[in-house]
């Protein structure tokens, strides 16, 4: 299954790990912040509707 990467295996694999890790981290942070902000907004909107 795994292709033979020869003597450059370490370099190739680590570049994939670094790049995919960064992408996943970016996506995770974006989604996490999107959820949090959405929840905060809903809360505030509920409150403002109840009061006003």
């Amino acid at each position, binding site marked *: *299954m795994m*292709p*033979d*990467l*020869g*003597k*450059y*295996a370490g*370099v*190739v694999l*680590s*570049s*994939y790990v*670094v*790049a995919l890790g*960064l*992408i996943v981290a*970016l*996506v995770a942070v*974006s*989604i996490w*912040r*999107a959820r949090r*902000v*959405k929840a*905060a*907004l809903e809360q*505030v*909107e509920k*409150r*403002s509707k109840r*009061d006003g």
Partner: protein
Amino acid sequence: MSLWEYANPVKFIRTTDMVLPWISVLAVLCLVTGLIWGFFFTPEDYRQGSTVKIIYLHVPSALMAINAWMMMLVASIIWIVRRHHVSALAARAAAPVGAVMTLIALATGALWGQPMWGTWWAWDPRLTSFLILFLFYLGYIALWSAIEDDDTAADLSSILCLVGSVFAVLSRYAVNFWNQGLHQGASLSLDKEENVADVFYFPLLVCIAGFVLLFVALVFLRTQTEIRARRTRALIAREQRG
């Protein structure tokens, strides 16, 4: 029906909510296909050995690093001229994505350079320009987060984006002048014969499509977040006032 209708935040959120799942799925599909195709099913280059597989990450991320800045520039100009909030917030949302793309391009480039050029880092024009671009991203993000008032922050950072673009281009030529490079020329262009070979070319195209879609999806999502954050702040401010 015109493009400017999407300047309405509510309309923007509704539309992007509709397309966001499709774009995300498509992005993941392209990335997975392209990377698996590239990683498992392409031959090794006769000179570079297996390191050629890094191209599927390096070239698309480098491309997106520059395109993200271009998109921020356009969004900043739209904000300055027509003062649509969505546009300013989209520029803000794109900056961290662009910075991460620059970082990926730099990191994979360094890892590729180590076996090929015998060094992690060379003060080569392309590498140096990317490092400078990364610094510009950092400054832009820092300025956005330092200013509390939303409109002021949008105004100031869009002007910084304009001035920064001019200086980024100047730096590019200055750096070219300053040192001759190790980096190869363009590997993708429509009119040249010296492109990469077809076996590498098609998976690369799929990867580029994946990165573009990923960028669009992330910018949509993050712009929505910025719009909501801004609205939350406005509501809280109104509550406190009375």
